[in-house]
C-alpha cells in the first residue's frame, strides 16, 4: 500500500491557492511508501536511506540555515572583540602560556574559560570549523532543494487558479469594461506585455484567463549566489591548505633565498621610509631584485600597494627595522649566515631583540643588541648578546663584540654588523583565483536576485451579469458588462501596489482607446 502525502497542485489550485506559495509556506512534503501515515511504530523497519533523507531534510531546513548564519555571526563578533592569536602560537605550549599571561591582564578570571572554549583562536578552532562546514552543507542542501522549484516556476508555471482566488488574493485589481471577452483578454495581454510580463494562456480557461510573470528566470540568481559560497569556502580551504606565506627579512644590500624549489633569490637594493612633518608615515619603499642564478628576472620598487609579482609569487612590503648580521659555524663550517631581524624590544626599551632557530639542532638563539640611542641596556653598544635555549631551558649566554666570534653550545657565533632590513611577505595562493570567481558569482547572483524581482499575477475576464465569484460588484463596476480581475500573492504589498496600479490604469486606458476607435464590443 502506498500512502501519498505529496502536495497536489491541482487540488490546491481548485481551492484557489497558488501551489508554489503553499509549498514555500509549508515546506516540503514527504512521500512515505508502505508506512502508516503516523510514521513507523514500535521498532518497525526503517530503510537506511531514511537516515540520508533525514540528514538532507535537516540541512535544507531554513531554520537550521538561519541558526548557522547567526552562529557564524556570533563567532565573528566574538573574534572581533576577544584578542586573537594564531593557531601556531596556540599550539606551542610556551607561547600559549605567554599569551594567556598577557590575556589574563585583560580578561582576568574569564581567561581560562575563553581559552577552554577556543575563543582566543576563534577562527581556527574546531567548533568554528564545524559551524563553517555545516553552513556549507546547509547552503548546498538548500540550493539543491530549491532548484526543481525554480525550474518549475520558469518552465512549468502554475497558470490556472480557481475563480475564487480573485476574491482572496492578497493583491487584487479590477477593471470594468464593456468589451467582449476576447478583446478584453487581448488588451490585458497587451498591457501586461508592455509591462515586460511573460503572458501565458490558462489552458483550462483559454478564452477567459491569463497567467503572467516577470523575471521567472531570476531564481538562477539565488542559485548562483548560494553556490558562490561553496566556491568561497573552498577557496579558503585551498588557500589554507596549499598556499605559501612566508615573511622574509631581507637586509638592505643583502640577499635571501626564496626557497620552495624556485631557484630564486631576492635582493633588497635599497629601502627608504619617509614621514610627514607631523611624524605620520608617508611612504615605505624597497627596491627589490629577483634573480635566478645570475639572471635578473624581475626588479621593481615595492610599496604597500604595489607588490612585486613573478612566477605565481608575490612579494609585499610589510615591515622594516634593524637586523643583526649573524654568522654561525660548526667546526669551521658555516651553518647559518643571515640578517636576524630585531623585531621586539625589551620591557625597558633599552634593547632590541631578535631570534632564530639554529639549523640542524633543537636550539633557539635569541640575539640582543642595544636599542638605537640607548646606552643603558644589558648589552654594550657595538656588541651582541647571544642567548642559547633548548626548549624553556637557557643553555648559555655570551656577549660577542662586533666581528669577534664567541663559542657556545659547540658553535661559533659572530655578530658581523647591524643594518637595516626590509620585511617582505612572500605569498603564493592557489585559492585566490577561486576566491575571485566565488566573489564575482556572489555579486552577479545578488545583482540578478535584487534587480530582477520575480512577479506574477493571474487575470480573468468575468461577466458581471453571471458572476463567477461570491464577491459583490459595487460602484461604477456594476454598470459594466464585464470585469477584468487581477490577483497576485505578493508578500511585499506596498512595493507591489505601484505596479498593480499602473497595470490597472493602463488597461483602463487601453480599453477606453479601443472603445473610442469603435472596436467591436
Amino acid at each position, binding site marked *: 500500500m502506498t500512502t501519498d502525502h505529496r502536495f497536489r497542485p491541482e487540488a490546491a489550485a481548485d481551492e484557489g491557492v497558488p501551489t508554489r506559495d503553499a509549498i514555500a509556506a509549508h515546506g516540503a512534503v514527504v512521500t512515505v511508501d508502505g508506512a502508516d501515515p503516523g510514521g513507523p511504530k514500535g521498532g518497525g523497519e526503517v530503510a537506511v536511506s531514511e537516515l540520508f533523507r533525514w540528514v538532507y531534510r535537516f540541512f535544507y531546513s531554513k531554520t537550521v540555515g538561519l541558526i548557522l548564519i547567526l552562529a557564524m*555571526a556570533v563567532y565573528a563578533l566574538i573574534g572581533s572583540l576577544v584578542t586573537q592569536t594564531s593557531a601556531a602560537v596556540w599550539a606551542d605550549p610556551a607561547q600559549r602560556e605567554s599569551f594567556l599571561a598577557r590575556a589574563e591582564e585583560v580578561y582576568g578570571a574569564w581567561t581560562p574559560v575563553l581559552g577552554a572554549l577556543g575563543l582566543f583562536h576563534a577562527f581556527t578552532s574546531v567548533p568554528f570549523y564545524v559551524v563553517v562546514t555545516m553552513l556549507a552543507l546547509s547552503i548546498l542542501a538548500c540550493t539543491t532543494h530549491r532548484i526543481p522549484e525554480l525550474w518549475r516556476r520558469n518552465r512549468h508555471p502554475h497558470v490556472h487558479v480557481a475563480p475564487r482566488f480573485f476574491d482572496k488574493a492578497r493583491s487584487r*485589481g479590477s477593471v470594468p469594461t464593456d468589451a467582449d471577452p476576447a478583446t478584453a483578454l487581448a488588451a490585458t495581454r497587451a498591457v501586461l506585455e508592455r509591462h515586460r510580463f511573460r503572458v501565458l494562456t490558462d489552458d483550462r480557461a483559454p478564452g477567459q484567463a491569463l497567467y503572467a510573470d516577470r523575471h521567472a528566470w531570476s531564481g538562477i540568481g539565488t542559485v548562483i549566489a548560494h553556490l558562490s559560497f561553496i566556491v568561497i569556502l573552498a577557496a579558503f580551504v585551498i588557500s589554507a591548505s596549499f598556499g605559501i606565506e612566508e615573511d622574509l627579512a631581507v637586509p638592505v644590500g643583502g640577499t635571501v633565498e626564496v626557497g620552495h624549489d624556485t631557484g630564486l633569490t631576492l635582493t633588497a637594493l635599497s629601502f627608504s621610509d619617509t614621514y610627514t612633518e607631523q611624524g605620520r608615515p608617508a611612504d615605505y619603499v624597497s627596491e627589490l631584485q629577483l634573480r635566478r642564478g645570475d639572471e635578473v628576472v624581475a626588479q621593481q620598487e615595492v610599496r604597500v600597494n604595489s607588490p612585486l609579482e613573478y612566477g605565481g609569487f608575490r612579494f609585499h*612590503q610589510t615591515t622594516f627595522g634593524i637586523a643583526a648580521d649573524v654568522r654561525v659555524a660548526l667546526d669551521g663550517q658555516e651553518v647559518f649566515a643571515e640578517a636576524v631581524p630585531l623585531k621586539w624590544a625589551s620591557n625597558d626599551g633599552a634593547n632590541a631583540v631578535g631570534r632564530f632557530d639554529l639549523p640542524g639542532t633543537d636550539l633557539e638563539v635569541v640575539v640582543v643588541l642595544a636599542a638605537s640611542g640607548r646606552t643603558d641596556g644589558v648589552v654594550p653598544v657595538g656588541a651582541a648578546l647571544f642567548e642559547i635555549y633548548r626548549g624553556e631551558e637557557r643553555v648559555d649566554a655570551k656577549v660577542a663584540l662586533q666581528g669577534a666570534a664567541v663559542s657556545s653550545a659547540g658553535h661559533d657565533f659572530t655578530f658581523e654588523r647591524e643594518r637595516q632590513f626590509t620585511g617582505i611577505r612572500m605569498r603564493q595562493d592557489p585559492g585566490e583565483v577561486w576566491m575571485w570567481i566565488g566573489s564575482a558569482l556572489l555579486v552577479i547572483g545578488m545583482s540578478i536576485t535584487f534587480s530582477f524581482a520575480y512577479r506574477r499575477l493571474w487575470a480573468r475576464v468575468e461577466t458581471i451579469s453571471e458572476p463567477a465569484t461570491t464577491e459583490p460588484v459595487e460602484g461604477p463596476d456594476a454598470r459594466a458588462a464585464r470585469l477584468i480581475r487581477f490577483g497576485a500573492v505578493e508578500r511585499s504589498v506596498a512595493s507591489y501596489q505601484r505596479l498593480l496600479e499602473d497595470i490597472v490604469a493602463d488597461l483602463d486606458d487601453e480599453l477606453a482607446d479601443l472603445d473610442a476607435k469603435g472596436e467591436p464590443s
Partner: protein
Amino acid sequence: MSEVLQLAEYLLTASLVFVVLALICNVVIITSRQRRAAVQTSERVTVAAGVPSSDTLVVSPVPDRSRRRRRRAPLSGLAWYATGFAAIAFVCVLAYVLLRMSLTGHGPFSNQHEFAVSFVLGILGAYLVVEFVYQVRALSLAVLPIAAVLLLYAMSLDAGVQPLIPALQNNLLLTLHVGFAILAYGAAAVSCGAAALYLLHPKLRLRNLPARDLFDDIGYKAATVTFPMLTIMIVLGAVWANTAWGRYWGWDPKETAALVTWLIYGAYLHARVTRGWQGTRSAVLLLVGFLAVLFAYFGNHFFGGLHSYA
C-alpha cells in the same frame, strides 16, 4: 589650503542647520491638522476570511483619468520647504566632499572625519531617494536625527588634511571600497529609521503618519540595497587587502565586524524571504543590523588591527 578648509567647514555647519530645519518642517507637517489630498488609486481593506494576512491591496482605476498619473503630488507649502532643506543639506555635504577631494586628490575617506561626512552624504542621499519614491516624509523623523548627530560628530573631529598613510595609497580601491560602504551605510540608516518607525507606529499619535506596513516595506527595500552594497564593499576590501597585505582575508577586527554586519542583513533577508518574517521580528533585525553598522564604523576607536588608522 587652511583658509579653503575653514570655508568648507561652513558648508558642514550649513548642512546641519538645513537638516534640522527639514526635520522641524516635517514634524509640523506630520503633526498638522491639515491633511494633504491623497492621490492614489488603491486602498487597503480587511478581508474577513480566507487570507492569512488581514491587509489586502485592492486596486481599481480612478474615474478621473487626469489624476491617474499624479501619484507624486506636487510639492507645495511647508512640504516644499522640508524637501528643499533636506536637498540643500545634501548639496552642502556633497560640495564639502567634492571640495575636500579637490584639495586632497583622493576620495574623502581617509579618516573618521571624512568618513563621517561621507556617511551623512549616504544617509541624506538614501533618504531623499526614498522620500521621492515612496512620498513618505515621516521617515525623516527617524533618519534625519541620525544624519544630524553624525554631522555633529564629524564637526567635533579633527578636519585637517593629512597625506594618506602608505596602506591607503590606492586611490581607485579607496574610492570604490569606501564609496560602496557609504551607499550601504546610507541605505542601512534608512532601513533602521523605517524599522524604528514600524515598531513605534502603534505608540505614535501622529495625524499624518502613513500605514504601518509601508515602513516595513521601506525597511525591506532599503535592506535589499544595503546587502548587495555591503557585499561589493567586502569583496573590494578583499581585493585591496590581497594587494596591500598579501591576503584577501585575515580576520582583522574591522573585516570581521563588516562580516558580522553582512551576516545580520543576510539573516534578515533569508528570514523574510524564506521564513516569511515580516513586521516586528524583521524590524528588530534591521535595528540590530544598523547597530552592527555603527559598531563596524566606530570600531576603529577600540579595534586594533590593520584598520586602526582610519
